């Protein structure tokens, strides 16, 4: 019911560099600097909260890469300045170390996500005491409650998404988020391997719903999970599954598709 806007997960310059190195399978000095810059700029543009500090980080990394590349391109002198070389090595090691750390916590966070999701399937009874006779017996009902808790409770009571009674008659309801649609598509495509967009959206005539599904297809392509072909303009769009059939990999892919939370 609630609108959810899916935006790409913004997870830092290391993440972007990691993507470039691991996914695109190129050596750092083989990437054109323009491509790196494009990728960084694209990332910055998409980032919901990009501050000066973040931009600076990106610049720093880009500059480091430029420097590394420049060194690489220069004709190698027979006499190499040892200091320069050491600098280059330690720079690289530092970058490598940070990339490794980034990679480690990214994987750890995906496992956390899975644990959260598994745990969410089982909900705790937090009802507490319901019978009035017991409630009247309790020494302090407000034990440990602070003014801030009261404020939080009031905001919670009024917060969106808690109960479905918002008056939504003035907006067109979207029953499906891009995230949902991606999950649906992954399910369908990994099963059928190939399908046309027309077939995947059979029976759907709401335009918004179609758009949501189309965005989901683009998201899959971006995640490297699908290929799209269209033989002629306005022809059928054929979507082929290129992702893994491993459920874990698919879940990891889902973690990349994110609903941004303020």
């Amino acid at each position, binding site marked *: 019911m609630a609108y959810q806007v899916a935006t790409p997960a913004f997870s830092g310059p290391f993440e972007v560099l990691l993507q470039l190195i691991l996914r695109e399978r190129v050596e750092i000095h083989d990437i054109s600097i323009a491509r790196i810059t494009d990728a960084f700029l694209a990332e910055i543009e998409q980032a919901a909260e990009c501050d000066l500090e973040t931009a600076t980080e990106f610049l720093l990394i880009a500059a480091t890469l430029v420097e590394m590349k420049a060194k690489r391109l220069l004709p190698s002198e027979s006499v190499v300045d040892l200091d320069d070389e050491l600098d280059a090595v330690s720079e690289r090691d530092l970058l490598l170390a940070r990339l490794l750390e980034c990679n480690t916590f990214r994987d750890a966070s995906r496992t956390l996500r899975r644990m959260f999701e598994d745990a969410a399937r089982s909900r705790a009874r937090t009802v507490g005491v319901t019978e009035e006779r017991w409630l009247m017996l309790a020494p302090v009902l407000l034990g440990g409650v*602070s003014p801030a808790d009261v404020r939080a409770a009031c905001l919670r009571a009024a917060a969106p998404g808690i109960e479905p009674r918002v008056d939504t008659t003035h907006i067109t309801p979207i029953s499906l988020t891009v995230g949902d649609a991606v999950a649906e598509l992954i399910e369908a495509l990994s099963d059928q391997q190939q399908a046309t967009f027309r077939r995947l959206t059979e029976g759907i005539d709401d335009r918004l719903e179609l758009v949501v599904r189309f965005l989901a297809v683009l998201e899959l392509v971006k995640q490297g999970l699908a290929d799209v072909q269209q033989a002629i303009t306005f022809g059928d769009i054929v979507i082929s599954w290129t992702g893994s059939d491993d459920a874990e990999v698919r879940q990891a892919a889902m973690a990349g598709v994110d609903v941004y939370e303020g």
Partner: protein
Amino acid sequence: MSGPGDPAAPRRSSLAAALEAVLLLADEPVSPQVLAAVVGASAEEVRGACDALAAEYESHRRGFVLARVAGGYRYQTAPDQDLYVERFVRDGHSGRLSAAALETLAVVAYKQPVSRQQVAEIRGVNVDGVIRTLQRRGYIDEIARLPGPGQAVLYGTTRQFLEHLGLDSLDELPPLEQFVPDPDAVETMERRLRVVPSIDAAHPDGPAGDEP
């Protein structure tokens, strides 16, 4: 924690398990009609399954019973465990306000004077029982009545409420907006907290603003 149980275990109806799960989370009696809609069975089937469950718990002398209260079902402690339950509650291990009850109290605190109906609109659930408890425990009280037919009671918080929170006056309650994350959320919450227009009209100087 999860997983299929031991295969030799007796086949329990999946309806019973679904009802157990739903009722475990219910903080007020749930009617057979609501249960039926949730688990996808008829109210008749639900009633049968609930009664069977209640009988099963009783014959196994469990510590809880499935009681039929106010036209619905809810879990309660078995009467023969009163001794332990009383100790548990008296020692302050439980009996704090549930999150739901605290929300009701908070809405009253910030929106007072406010009617039961208005609180229910904001919370999205019936709050009669909670309001009664809060009033009997001295945290809220009747502070005015709406004019016009029906004369709905308007509630506000009490001195005792302030004392328990260590506050001198309501002005010391942290302002709602200061802590709100982003403009979108503020707007949504504002909209949700806005009292329904029809009531507003009947109550011009009422709790429409944000002032506590």
